[in-house]
């Protein structure tokens, strides 16, 4: 645990990629494989579900710290992070521990699920007493399922590649899918040769950057394949050894949630992997994404919801064919083969080819892009002809060319403090628009301002608080912000009657007064146009 906590601190204290990779490399080179396997597991963002109720954790920590509950509450407000608050409040450790990470995880963390409260409490308290603040913080983060650190999977992979000499793309692929951190696992992923045993394992997704600069800088349009960019759930549908696996981009196995697609996979030939987008799809048209959210939220999928919100796979690309990894083959070959697959299975009504959009010029494509909203898409994907299917987010061969977001001017009316890095600063805002003479809450936004702007808005909120409701403050309605968002539709769950998708602050409109903000009426008109 000591080494892992030190690694966490090293990663937390730098923003420089090289230093992060150096810290990771030094860690992997020095710890036993059983620890390295767990470290990879946590570093790439996999974590056990919450193993213990927050309420109990706080109760035991408060007793150990010998402070009243309300003082814990005040402390938590100042820190903004539960795991950290606990680690700062506990008394100094009475012992220290040299036990390795895998011991703490396997013997002390995972069994929490099975133990009764008395055993849990005893185990946690003895753990706390043996750890310094830094270790406690990491430990509490693991227990609460909130462990995060500023490294991407690709940084972890680069460090593993440096330690093992195995190619980074191969490592990235081996890290996909379902695996349990163990010595065997660690040895297998770092092996020079590997007979890959995991039948379900997906390929790393190829992700696109937004287009930079003018579109015609991409050169001759005939070197590019354009497709509409859909807004659904990016997924891989895999058929291997007579079984079907559906993976989300978040590397979650979601086969059971989409029985239609599981059935579709059953028609694929053995050894097939398709990259696509899951969309709610009815009568040859996508349904609004909110319909999908209705369905995702359900534990049990009854016949009604399956009939109301059926899904299809919009097929983008072919990654495996006949059991062979075809990602290195040119785009045209993959596309042609994908077309064969789609036409052989499209009678199910569950698969749709993402058709190339052919125009003679960038100008024509730009014109067509104006229809994006009416078509229920986000813009275009542009793929270079002849390109291979690459790993992760890469510039050059794939670009996303999204339409401009919607934009609305709204007034800051409520604020509450953020978490973590933004704790004790007011960073989470609710914005209102005019409905007659009153401002109705319209959207919440957390992102888009610079640190400098956040500091100024924070200072404004402190000086202009009207009322406090727990952590939330109502604020004198004076500041106007331009909000950007991707989608808009009616909602019975929102007071304004409107729900927007991905709202964020595009600009602080210091040039506008609250009365210049938009009205509910003009925003309703956006729905009509959507």
């Amino acid at each position, binding site marked *: 645990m000591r080494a892992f906590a030190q690694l966490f601190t090293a990663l*937390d*204290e*730098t*923003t420089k990629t090289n230093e992060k990779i150096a810290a990771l490399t030094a860690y992997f080179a020095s710890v036993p494989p059983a620890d390295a396997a767990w470290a990879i597991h946590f570093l790439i963002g996999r974590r056990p579900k919450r193993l213990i109720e927050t309420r109990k954790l706080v109760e035991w920590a408060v007793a150990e*710290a010998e*402070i*009243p509950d*309300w*003082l814990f509450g*005040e*402390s938590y*407000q*100042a*820190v*903004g*992070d539960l795991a*950290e*608050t606990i680690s*700062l*409040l506990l008394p100094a450790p009475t012992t220290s521990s040299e036990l390795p990470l895998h011991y703490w995880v396997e013997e002390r963390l995972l069994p929490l699920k099975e133990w009764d409260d008395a055993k849990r409490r005893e185990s946690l308290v003895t753990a706390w007493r043996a750890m310094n603040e830094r270790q406690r*913080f990491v430990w509490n983060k693991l227990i609460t399922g909130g462990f995060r650190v500023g490294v991407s999977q690709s940084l972890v992979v680069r460090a593993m590649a440096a330690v093992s000499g195995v190619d980074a793309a191969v490592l990235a692929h081996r890290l996909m899918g379902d695996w349990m951190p163990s010595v065997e696992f660690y040895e297998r992923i770092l092996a020079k040769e590997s007979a890959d045993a995991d039948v379900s394992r997906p390929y790393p997704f190829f992700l696109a950057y937004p287009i930079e600069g003018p579109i015609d800088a991409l050169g001759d349009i005939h070197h590019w394949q354009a497709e509409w960019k859909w807004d659904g759930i990016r997924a891989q549908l895999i058929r291997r050894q007579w079984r079907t696996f559906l993976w989300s981009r978040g590397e979650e196995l979601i086969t059971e949630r989409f029985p239609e697609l599981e059935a579709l996979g059953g028609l694929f030939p053995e050894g097939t992997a398709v990259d696509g987008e899951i969309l709610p799809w009815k009568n040859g048209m996508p349904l609004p994404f909110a319909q999908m959210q209705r369905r995702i939220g359900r534990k049990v999928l009854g016949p009604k919801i399956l009939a109301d919100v059926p899904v299809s796979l919009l097929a983008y690309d072919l990654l495996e064919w006949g059991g062979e990894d075809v990602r290195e083959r040119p785009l045209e070959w993959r596309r042609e083969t994908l077309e064969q697959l789609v036409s052989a299975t499209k009678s199910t009504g569950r698969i749709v080819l993402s058709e190339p959009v052919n125009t003679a010029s960038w100008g024509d494509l730009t014109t067509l892009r104006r229809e994006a909203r009416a078509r229920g898409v986000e813009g275009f994907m542009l793929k270079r002809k002849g390109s291979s299917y690459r790993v992760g987010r890469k510039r050059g061969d794939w670009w996303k060319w999204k339409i401009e977001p919607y934009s609305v001017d709204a007034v800051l009316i409520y604020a509450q403090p953020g978490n*973590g*890095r*933004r*704790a*004790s*600063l007011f960073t989470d805002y609710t914005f209102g628009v005019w409905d007659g003479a009153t401002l109705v809450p319209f959207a919440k936004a957390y992102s888009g301002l610079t*640190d400098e702007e956040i*500091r100024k808005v924070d*200072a404004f909120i*402190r000086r202009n608080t009207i009322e*406090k409701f727990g952590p939330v403050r109502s604020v004198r309605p004076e500041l106007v912000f331009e909000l950007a968002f991707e989608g808009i539709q009616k909602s019975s769950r929102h007071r304004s009657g409107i729900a927007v998708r991905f709202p964020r602050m595009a600009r602080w409109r210091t040039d506008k007064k609250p009365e210049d903000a938009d009205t509910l009426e003009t925003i309703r008109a956006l729905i009509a146009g959507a």
Partner: protein
Amino acid sequence: MSALLQVNANGLYCAVGAFYIDPWRPVPRAIVTHAHSDHAHWGCAAYLCSTPCQSVLRSRVGSDSNIEPRPYGESFDINGVRISLHPAGHILGSAQIRVESRGEVWVVSGDYKLEPDSTCTPFEPVRCHTFVTESTFGLPIYRWGAPSETAADMNAWWKSNQQSGKASVLFAYSLGKAQRVLAAIDPAIGPIFGHGAVEKLNRIYRETGIALPETHYAGSAPAATDWSRALILAPPSAHGSTWIRRFGTVSTAFASGWMRIRGTRRRRSIDRGFVVSDHADWPGLITAIDATGAECVLVTHGYRAPLVRWLCEHGRNAKALETRYDGERDEGTESETPEPDSPDPDPIPQVPA
């Protein structure tokens, strides 16, 4: 009967003695606890402070100011009010002000800390009936580690930067904190440079007889200076300024009590945070308050509400006192002091000046 000291529009006022303690506006007569700008306002007609505070105060409020120094522990009268100054351990010359009239004793602590610090006289508890305390770090999450460990961390950071060819830029408040850091760090590691604001106070500290390691003014260093071996002390306002560019590749650190919280450090986008404060931590506040034996505790700037509530739950008569002091803050930038407590439920009534 009105209280011996009351807050009015200008500051904490003693009507019987006709003087202010740490006023926030120019007044005829001010007794100053220490020379930080939120306690020592410019423009007063007459100042009184501790002897070691004198030079620092002069550098802050103007060289032609009328400043009367008094040694720690010596009693004197102002309009029949008995006054003495006692070390507060905060920075050079910082004093608690003991005020006595008709058998009633008040102590105004200004800012204070209990940790050892070779750059100032250690805090000395003074018995009183009413104790006016700060509460900058008035939550139990604020507990300072051993100064020797923090010093070792700073030394290790500096050495590791040298190995990777980076200059070490350490941000510290230029009055008090910078000198404390200087006195704690190992000068054998490499050359130490100071920002102009820091160097000016280093000089005053040395003139007052405080031993500090040798430092050089960064502004007059030759162009060929190898900064990668150096430690550079600068006020927090220099962070992100063009002044930093001259040092090439740097690692930045900030010495402050607020660095105890991960979010505060990350928000500042600095590489390292060292928990070094000139204010009492939570156990320090409680210890200091207990040692006064005070029946009544008035709590100023910081986490007032939690400290007041805690004291009341522990059998003390405690109240919040509305002042304009900032506590530990960043020089030249907006205060980072969180503002955790609600408007005072029971504010001290303000009397007209």
